[in-house]
Each structure stands twice: as C-alpha cells, then as structure tokens.
C-alpha cells in the first residue's frame, strides 16, 4: 500500500523530514566534474527538495554519508586523546535499490567482521533510508544478475511517475506524515532487466590468479582508484595523523578512504609491497567483489550498480571483466596447485 503525492506534496514531505532529519540525497554540482562545464552528481545535504536528482544515477554513491571520505577519529595531545564529535545528527538518505543492498555489505564489514566499528556505528544508528525506485535500469547497471534490483530494509520507497510520486512508507513512525493522503494499492516498480548481463562462474576460485585474463589490465589500468571511490561497497581506509603544531605534540587522527588500486595500498614498513602489477590489483578487487566476500559472508559484495564502469577514464568495464572469468577458469582449471 502506498500514497500518491503531487510534486508539491512530495516536497512538503521532504521539508517535513528536514525538520527532524538532515536529508542527504544525490545533488547536481554544476561544473563540478573532471572536465570543463561538466556537472557531477554526488551526495550532499539537501536544502531544497528540488535539488534532489531523481532521474539520473549519482556518480558517487551514498556511502559518503556513512563513511565520509575523510573522518576525524580523535584529537590528541602528548598524553591525552579526545574523541571527535559525531559529524551529523539524525539523517535520512535517498539512495537506490542497489545501494540499499550495499548498506548490508557495509554493515557486515563494519559491524560484523569480528569487531564493531565505533565511528561507523554511531552514524549508522542515526540514519534512515529512502529508496528511489528504478522503473528502468540505467545503461551500465547489472543489478538483476547481482540480485540487488529489489530493495530490502529501507524505511520508504518513492517512485516518480510523471508529475506524481508513489510513496510507500515502511517506517511506522513516519505514518503521521501521510495523514489525509489517499492510499493506493500499488507497489513500486523495480528494474526487471538490465542491458548488461553478467555471469559469475560457479567454479570460480583463487586459481584464477594464474589466468592470463588479467594481463591486459597491466597496461590498460592507470591505478587511479576511481572505481573504488565511487563504489558503494568499497570500505577500505587509511589512517592519517595531522599535526597542529611544529613540535607535533597536538593534532588529530583521521581515516580517509583508500583504494586497493592505488600505489602504496599494501606497502609494509620494511619496503615490501604486494600486487605491483595493475592486473593483479584488478584481480584482487574482482575476487573481493564476487568471491572472497561471499566466502566470508555468504553473498556477493558487488551490487551491480555499474558506477565503476561509468567513471573509469580508461573505459575498463568491471562487468565485462566479470564475464571473462569463465574463460579464465577454463584456462587455469579448478585444482589448486
């Protein structure tokens, strides 16, 4: 059961939510992309409901709301530390079905991978999710094959239908927002088909490292890490210590998002590093997304949003890479050496 809202009523709804929550949504930053006069769509706190971009996929994912690109953990002096304040209060985030599935991935790593992450949890505890329904798939999406096309666990789903909005509320606390609105018996749409199809071979195993399918990426990839930074499920970070004074006796420790594609990701103190070749980094990322994570948590990490394809300056397609795995396994065989 849902409600049909006019555009005005929808904006009223967002405004009412804004009274109680900080509302985050994909927003257009005019001229904010790499090239001259090209816009970028990324997440920001919404000041006006009209800013919310509903008809395009955001270039950067919602994850920045839960995992800021740069997050201060604590401040220190010589012998004392002081935890950083939470950067925001109660929040609502507009996201898509694939990203709703990515929330589960972030939760498993940050809450269920042996330790609970204090900083993630305090932001996670104060967030509600509104899914922007995708009646049609975007060009690079492959959510259907990754099983993430139907949203799960959200508080609300909205679907723009011409001048109107179908709104399905799944959070009982929000029912008050809909008093007086007529109910309709309509379920929100979801993408039932993608142009891009992927197949992860059942026999995939770490032997794939020996395949020649990775070699092309040694020269094609430039190890810039864009694929990781836009990915809603990439969660790696690096610690930074920032000095406030020359003598280094006061400062702050931050964590910033990190990329397994970028140089230095594996550097150890003695000067050693792993995966020097970019093809090896592609393989590492690929295996995490469609194999390693599944071995650990029971389902695939990649949610098929296709942002990595959209952003790659070298036109490397992750989904095309997935579809090479089968050939790769034929080449190397399943037996571990």
């Amino acid at each position, binding site marked *: 059961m849902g409600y049909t809202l006019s555009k005005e009523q929808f904006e009223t709804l967002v405004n009412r939510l804004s009274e109680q929550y900080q509302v985050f949504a994909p927003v257009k930053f005019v001229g904010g992309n790499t090239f001259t006069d090209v816009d970028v769509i990324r997440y920001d706190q919404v000041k006006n409901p009209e800013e919310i971009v509903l008809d395009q996929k955001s270039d950067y994912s919602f994850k920045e709301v839960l995992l800021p690109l740069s997050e201060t*953990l*604590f401040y*220190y*002096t*010589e*012998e004392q*530390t002081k*935890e950083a304040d939470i950067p925001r209060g109660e929040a609502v985030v507009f996201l898509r079905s694939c990203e709703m599935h990515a929330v589960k991935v972030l939760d498993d*790593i*940050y809450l269920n*991978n*042996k*330790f*609970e*992450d*204090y*900083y*993630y*949890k305090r932001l996670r505890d104060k967030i509600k999710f509104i899914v922007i329904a995708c009646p049609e798939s975007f060009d690079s999406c492959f959510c259907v094959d990754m099983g993430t096309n139907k949203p799960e666990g959200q508080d609300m789903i909205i679907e723009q239908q011409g001048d109107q909005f179908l709104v399905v509320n799944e959070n009982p606390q929000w029912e008050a927002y809909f008093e007086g609105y007529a109910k309709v018996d309509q379920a929100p749409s979801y993408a039932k088909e993608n142009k891009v199809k992927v197949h992860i071979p059942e026999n995939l195993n*770490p032997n794939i*490292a020996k395949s020649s399918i990775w070699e092309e990426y040694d020269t094609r990839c430039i190890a810039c890490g864009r694929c990781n930074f836009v990915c809603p499920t990439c*969660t*790696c*970070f*690096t*610690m*930074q*210590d920032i*000095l406030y004074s020359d003598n*280094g*006796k*006061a*400062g702050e*420790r931050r*964590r910033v998002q*990190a990329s*397994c594609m970028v140089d230095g*990701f*594996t*550097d*150890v*103190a*003695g*000067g*050693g590093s*792993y*995966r020097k070749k970019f093809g*090896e980094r592609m393989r*590492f990322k690929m*295996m*995490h997304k469609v*194999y*390693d*994570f599944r*071995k*650990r948590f029971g389902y695939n990490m990649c949610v098929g949003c296709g942002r990595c394809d959209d952003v790659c300056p070298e036109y490397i397609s992750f989904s095309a890479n997935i579809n090479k795995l089968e050939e790769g396994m034929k080449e190397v065989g399943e037996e*571990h050496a």
Partner: protein
Amino acid sequence: MRNEYIPFISEITEVIKHTDIEYTFRMTYEGDVRPGQFFEVSLPKYGEAPISVSGIGDGTVDLTIRKVGHVTGEIFENYVGDKLFLRGPYGNGFDVDDYKGKEILVVAGGTGLSPVRGVVDYFATHQSEAKSLTLIAGFKSPNDILFFEDIARWKQHAQVILTVDCAEGDTDCHIGLVTQFIPDIKIENMDEAVAVVVGPPIMMRFSVMGLLDLGLKEENIWISQERKMCCGIGKCGHCKIGESYVCIDGPVYRYPEGKLLID
C-alpha cells in the same frame, strides 16, 4: 560500545639495542597477550605501525622495532620513562599448546624472529614440554642479528643454527640461506613434528617447500604473515588476502589455510 581506535598510554620501562636500527622496547601492559600478536604503536607526530609482540613479561610486553620508515624512526628518540600510545593486542598469535610434546622446528628470517621469539623462549625455558627444539635463524649479516643474548641462552637447551646471507668479519655462524639447512634436520616422527616459519615472503615459501620435502605434514606447519595494517580490527582492508583478514584471522595461519591465500 568500545571505541577500539582510541589508544592507551604505555610507558617505556627498558630499551634493548640489538643492532644500529633494531631495538626492543619493553612497555607496560596489563592483560592477556600471546606471542605473534601485535600492537598498533603510535606516535602523535607520525601515526601508527603494527608491531608484533616479541616478548611477554610480568606487566610488560616487548615490542621489537626496526628503524624503517618515518613511523618507527620517531620511536627511537624516545627512551626509558617516555610514553607511547598503543592499541591492541590484535591478531590470533601463536598457541604454544599446539606444539607441546612435539619435535619443534622454528625457521625465522630477519625481524621474523620477533613474533616467534616468545614461542622459542617458552620451550627453551620449559624444555620438558617439547620433545626437541630446533631454531634456524637467518639474518642478512652478523650486524643484523637480533636477540643475540637470547640466542646464546637458547643454545644451551636447543639446537640453534644461526646463519647469515653474507659474511662480514669474524663470526661463528653459518653462511647461507635458512633453507639450505632444512634438509639436514633430524626428525624422529615426521607425522607429529611441527614447524613455525616466519620471515619475508620468499623465504617462507622456500622454507615451507623444504619442510614438506623433508616430510613434515602441511597441517603441522604454521606461518605468520606481515601485511600493512591500519586498523587491526578487520575494517581498513589493507591486510586482506583472499577471504582472510591478516589482522583478525592471522597473522598466524596453519599452512593448509595459508597456502590458499593469494595476495
């Protein structure tokens, strides 16, 4: 809930110099800790580095730190009485119970001796708890030898083969790689004998191959991995190998599991 990222203060109670660039810092620490585990050691000016526990005392832990990179460089300016921020201990570490009553062979390369020092020391001290104890320790040169006094003490109760990659001046130790001494090790019960291998990746690979050739069983070999670790708690992703996070599932692995992990 607990904020694992906030470090605690630990005081340096003693500094032991091994080489020009390698020191052991004895730090105050109350709590459970195993050899092979590690602490995230930080200095406000530079940041954190994972350092494995090289010794466990009464209310102290030993952290053997090699002066490489700017993180660990700063620590050398701190001396007894100074304080450091620590987090941990993290990782699984070694369980000496796994080796009790058996022929034990420890193969260590360079600073790889730090994480196993506790294991060697335990059985060198509790000789009745092992059938035999053999240590093959390799260093780049005589000047790089760690725990020299410990090694001298262990020699009284264990077979110790000390080897250097190249000769520099007078030394009574062997010259060559640790791997070349493995075939000569006398093992009575191949099915029961256990081995621990810690060191640089190539050294570990060839050592394990040597041990398997010798006749040891895969499941009786343990290795310890060194990877970049920013968080120590399975979040930052730098140490992930295959499906495993070295910081929480390792750094110590039984070989049948460890061999499946591809960087």
